[in-house]
Structures are given as C-alpha cells and as structure tokens.
C-alpha cells in the first residue's frame, strides 16, 4: 500500500524526535508531519493555558534582495511593504490578477533591501516560481526553504520560557517585529508572530540545530506546562482565532475582500496585481462573504458540508471542527453577501440531517491582553 514515504513526502529535521515521542504522523502539503502527540484536545488547551512547541519546518521561506526588491514586492503583494521598518513584519498575500491570493504569507524586512517571506508548505514552489516569473526588474529572489528549520513557541507562558534560553530583550520585541537572536545557543531569526491567537514566537534557524533547539525548549518549559503540539491542534487553534487556511478560505477563486482580508489590502499604496478587481468590489460589492458559524444542535460542521438558508443551498463550510477551548462546534463558511449577518440562522447538511447553526462575529476567540 502507498505510504507517505513511497509518495515522496519530505521529512523535517525533527522527524526522528516526533516518532520517538509517539506522534501520529500523516502527510500534509507534501511533508510527513506530526498530527498529534498526547491528543489534539490536550495540546490545544496547553497552548491556551500554558505553552506549546510546534515543528513548522515544512513552511517555506523565500528571500528577496536588492534595490529592486521593494518595487517587486509592492507589485506582487496586497499589503504596503514600504511601511516596514527594518525588523518589522506584516501579514500579506501574494496576488493573482483576479484579486485572489497565490498564497497568504508573512513578509519580514531584514535589512535596507532585504526581505524574508514565510509561505505555506504546499505552495512554496508555486510562490517561488510566481515571484521569479514576475521579476522583470531583476531583484535577487531565492528559495531558501532548505536552509531553515522553523519552530514555533506559542502561549501565555511562551515569553517566560523563551527568556530562560535567550539573551534577546523579549520585552522590547513587539508583536509582528523580529530580530537576529541566539536561542538555546543557536543563531537565527526570532519573530513575534504566530498562527494560534496567543502571544508567541517563531524561530528560523539552520536545520542541523533542530534537535538541540527543540529539546532545550522542551526541557526548559516542561515545568511550566510546555507540550509538543501537532498540526491537528494547530488547525483547531487557528480556527478558534478566526485565521484563514489557504486551500480552504483562500484560493484562486476567492478575492481578499471576500475572505475578510480587506485589512491587508492597501489600495492607496499604488498599483499591484489584482488591485483593480478589489477596487471594483469595493464599489460594486463582493460575490460571497466569509462568515463564522457555531452549531446550535449536536453535530460537527466539517470542511465541504453544504450550508442551507431558507430551504436553499447557499454555500459550504470551508473549515469546521470542535473548538476545544470554547467547548462548542464552530466553522467558517461562504454565503451570499445578502445572507450574511451575525445572529442569522442556517442549517448545515451533515450526512442525512440538517442541523441548526447560527452566524457569529469573528474571531471566535481573542486572547486577553
């Protein structure tokens, strides 16, 4: 039978550690990754209440350098790259001319003319080729993914734990800023970013140091409740926080405005791919709207389940699952704009039943300051 290995799935430098920890592994975005260790619910709650450590080395990294870098990135992304000071980062999207995303990403400015983009694992090659294809100005564009492992440390105790293994002044590292740091004796890029809705950090460093960093952080944080967390809880955490996942809330047929990402579209920065489509939608309206939902009767809305309103099928669930911290079943779905509105009731088609749900404002969960 076919296994991730026979299908050519890649492994991160921490693969042996995950197997030794007894993680359930599965294929994601072309990589064989840990889905859960102690269990999704327990891992999710650890991140909300204490801290979790994630191997996110499957993510891609693309470097864009040179005097033409800013111009290239301004043309290709939705957010305003010119606003970035050195060591500042921004959530953004690489754009199609249709106003939709090639990928969502985080753009970090590391120097005068040096940008470092973190992209989704499944889209790394696609994103790199897209940037290269549009690089008429001749900026220096490199796919540096193989040069980095990436570990995320997330949760209310993350800063406390990290402060024990780094001399970097964490108190002065604001959300969506980064810097060159040494953590667990390993040099790398430390960013105050994350995908969980908690305070936290993402550390990018050379892969040969992976086990050292992972083990040191786990050892240091164990007494504070630090646990390894897999992709299963990574998904339930980002869903509670209302964050989109490419391939679900974002794809080539969904504009950024339709996915509630108008806040990362800076139309006044100048021309960029897809700008005219977004401008038109601002004037004339969008074709669909992403809404949050919670179930009102027993049942779990899942990806792809149809959404019914007034006896008509109006859309589908893009992401759905139980929310372990909020203790309810939640989801994201696209509905026609006229049907969107917090409090409005819908039915989710779950196999043979139509189960009551209602639209709720996003995010489902917001951390206390």
């Amino acid at each position, binding site marked *: 039978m076919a*296994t991730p290995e026979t299908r050519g799935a890649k492994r991160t430098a921490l693969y042996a550690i995950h197997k030794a920890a007894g993680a*359930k592994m599965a294929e994601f975005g072309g990589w064989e990754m840990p889905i859960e260790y102690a269990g*999704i*619910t327990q891992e999710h709650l650890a991140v909300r209440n204490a801290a979790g450590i994630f191997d996110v080395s499957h993510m891609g990294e693309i470097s864009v350098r040179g005097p033409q870098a800013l111009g290239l990135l301004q043309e290709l992304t939705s957010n305003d790259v010119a606003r970035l000071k050195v060591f500042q980062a921004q959530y953004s999207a690489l754009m199609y001319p249709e106003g939709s995303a090639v990928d969502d990403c985080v753009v970090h400015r590391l120097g005068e003319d040096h940008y470092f983009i973190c992209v989704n694992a499944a889209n790394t090659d696609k994103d790199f080729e897209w940037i290269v294809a549009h690089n008429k100005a001749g900026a220096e564009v490199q796919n540096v993914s193989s040069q980095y492992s990436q570990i995320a440390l997330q949760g209310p105790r993350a800063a406390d734990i990290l402060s024990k293994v780094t001399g970097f002044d964490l108190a002065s590292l604001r959300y969506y800023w980064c810097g060159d740091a040494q953590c667990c004796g390993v040099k790398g890029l430390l960013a105050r970013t994350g995908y969980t809705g908690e305070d936290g950090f993402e550390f990018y460093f050379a892969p040969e140091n992976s086990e050292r960093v992972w083990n040191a952080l786990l050892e240091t944080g164990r007494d504070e409740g630090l646990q390894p967390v897999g992709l*299963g809880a990574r998904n*339930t955490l980002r869903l509670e926080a209302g964050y989109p996942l490419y391939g679900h809330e974002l794809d080539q047929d969904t504009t950024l405005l339709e996915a509630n990402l108008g806040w990362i579209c800076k139309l006044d920065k100048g021309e960029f791919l897809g700008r005219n489509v977004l401008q038109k939608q601002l004037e004339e309206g969008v074709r669909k709207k992403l809404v949050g939902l919670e179930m009102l009767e027993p049942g*779990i809305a899942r990806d792809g389940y149809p959404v019914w309103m007034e006896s008509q099928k109006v859309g589908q669930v893009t992401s759905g*699952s*139980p929310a372990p911290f909020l203790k309810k079943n939640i989801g994201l779905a696209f509905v026609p704009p006229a049907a969107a509105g917090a409090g409005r009731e819908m039915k989710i088609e779950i*196999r043979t039943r139509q189960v009551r749900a209602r639209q709720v404002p996003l995010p489902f969960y917001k951390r206390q300051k």
Partner: protein
Amino acid sequence: MYPDEFQYTKDHEWIQVDEDTGTIGITDHAQKELGDIVYVELPKIGDPLAASETFGTVESVKAVSEVYSPVTGEVTGVNGKLQNHPEILNTDPHGSAWLVRVHLSDPKELEKLMSAEEYEAYIQEDKAH
C-alpha cells in the same frame, strides 16, 4: 487485551454474541487510531443493520469515521451514554462504551469474523506497513 468472547472485523468493530443477540462496539485499536472522540451518531431502536454496511459514525476532533456492522439484523438497544459522554469510547471501548445491541437474523455470518487471536495478529500486520 482483546477479549476472547468477542469476535472482530477488519474494520475494527467487535461483537459479543449470546444466542441470537449481539452487542457491537469499536476496538481499542480503533479508538487509539481516532484520537479524542467528540461525537457519536447511532441508529434508532428498530433500525435494520446489514453486514459490512455502515450504521453510524464516530467523530474525533479531526475526522469522521464510519462504523460498519459485523452482522445483519435489527437494532434492539442503543447506548444512550455516548450522546453526552462520547469520550468513554477512548477509555472503555470494550465495556461501557458499546454502541448498539442487535438481534441477529443470520448467525452463520459470525463464521466470517476473526477471533481475538486472529485480530491481534491482524493489527500487528497492519502496524508493520
């Protein structure tokens, strides 16, 4: 680990039979594979069961898994505890977390099922792949 008085299917269900009445559940191997179980959908008393056909679902945080009936017959009992406490499937899959009771219409179907010994060998083979 796997009770000798149960018989087992390749899809990791068990059935314990007394004359022409059976109790059906999922195995410990199944609950381990699934992870935290958060929701269970079961048939109603009086519903028909058909061998190898799905009769309900067990949901983990991540996924929905169909449950297949080992035998043909009629549902005579449903475990009401699972509605509010699906998590007992993780802690007691061979005992208090049984799924349904069935009246068998063709007890000869039991001959196709595995013994505890055969099932243990089967899941060892499964792990090796």
